[in-house]
């Protein structure tokens, strides 16, 4: 039993079809728990009023926006090394989700920024880095749509994803250098004791888990769709040749 078994599309379809409802139900449970707890049963923060509650959407979306790109990088590398089509299709399926997560993070941030910082947008390093990330997602998706041949497009987008990752990191440090920020430091971290207060901590963790589960659900659905589309294209090509 190894992970690579799921590189076989049939095996992948079987397993993903079986676990998909579980992930869907779990993500609904976690998201609704996190949101309802976060929005209705946490106190208002001292300086922020009720606007603090946007955190339960903003932080998980921002987290996912970055991690989805990392996931795309990993699956692209797997494609380049081991040539498993499921892997690169998962990257393709994940990209639009990452794009939407980036947009959610930017928009909720803007809504929060208006009452708190007095402006919807500031050229702050974090905000700018997310805007650049948005452009990378757009370019990646556009390249997928531009080329028809499945092998070529998979290779090219994978290369773009790798080069893009290096430049995205570089841009992140470049914008840090370029302008000082308004954005506060990390609200959560694994190694440091600089968490938000406990009352906010648990609903935030649950929302984050909900977003991760939601992403897994969506990426499974979308990957299955991509595999089916691939099969359909193969069938139609066979029809034409007969």
């Amino acid at each position: 039993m190894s992970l690579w078994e799921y590189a076989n599309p049939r095996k992948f379809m079987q397993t993903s079809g079986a676990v998909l409802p579980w992930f869907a139900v779990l993500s609904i449970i976690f998201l609704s728990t996190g949101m309802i707890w976060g929005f209705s049963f946490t106190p208002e923060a001292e300086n922020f009023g009720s606007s603090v509650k946007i955190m339960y959407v903003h932080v998980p979306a921002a987290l996912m926006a970055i991690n989805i790109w990392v996931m795309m990088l990993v699956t692209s590398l797997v494609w380049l090394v081991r040539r498993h089509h499921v892997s690169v299709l998962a990257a393709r399926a994940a990209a639009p989700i990452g794009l939407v997560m980036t947009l959610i993070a930017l928009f909720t941030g803007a809504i929060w920024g208006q009452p708190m910082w007095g402006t919807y947008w500031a050229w702050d390093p974090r905000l700018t880095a997310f805007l650049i990330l948005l452009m990378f997602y757009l370019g990646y998706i556009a390249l997928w749509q531009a080329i028809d041949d499945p092998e070529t497009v998979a290779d090219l987008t994978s290369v773009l994803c790798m080069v893009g990752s290096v430049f995205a990191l570089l841009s992140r440090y470049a914008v840090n250098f370029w302008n000082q920020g308004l954005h506060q430091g990390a609200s959560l971290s694994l190694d440091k004791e600089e968490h938000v207060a406990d009352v906010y901590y648990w609903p935030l963790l649950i929302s984050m888990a909900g977003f991760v589960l939601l992403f897994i659900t969506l990426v499974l659905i979308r990957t299955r769709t991509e595999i089916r589309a691939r099969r359909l294209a193969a069938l139609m090509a066979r029809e034409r040749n007969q």
Partner: protein
Amino acid sequence: MIAILIRDMRLAMRAGGGFGLGLAFFLIVVVLVPFGVGPQSAILAEIAPGILWVGALLACLLSLDRIFALDFEDGSLDLLATAPIPLEGVVAMKALAHWLTTGLPLTIAAPFLAVLLHMPQNGFVWLVITLATGTPALSFIGTFGAALTVGLKRGGLLLSLLVLPLYVPTLIFGAEALHRGMAGLDATTPLLMLAGITTGVIALLPFVAAATIRINLR
């Protein structure tokens, strides 16, 4: 490889629309800005470094799709790919030829256009230094973008979408070094970062671009 370099430069200069176009575009961008912003020299001097850098970047972008497109159409790219010299070298030479016909003229022309924008005179040296350090990176990154879109019928717009985000770090450090140099501050850090990006992409991206071309020619 020298032969390829000379061939590409000759093609760029003699076949119309490559060599002069970038420069003319740069001129037009710089001339248009005062129409939009107004002729007050204080404002123009303030934004001059940014305008010149962004203008040079866009002018570089303009001629990128010509790096491989013509060779791809008439089949000489296939010959170059199967030639006994490494494709990586071919790509590096093509990027170098692009820089010599776009980046270098832009660098030389920039101080003259800076006069139009009332840029302080102590900035001219910094303008030339930063552009000379930064534009090779633009050419090499652009060559990678051109390699990605080489097989496409209308790749021009996609090329810009792919390449512009990759230009962000170069632009930031280049413009920052220029700002600091003009203001009399210490510009060593951004200048070194800029030089680091340039040398890094010169060293690495020809390999990536060559691999990309092999994928596209497959």
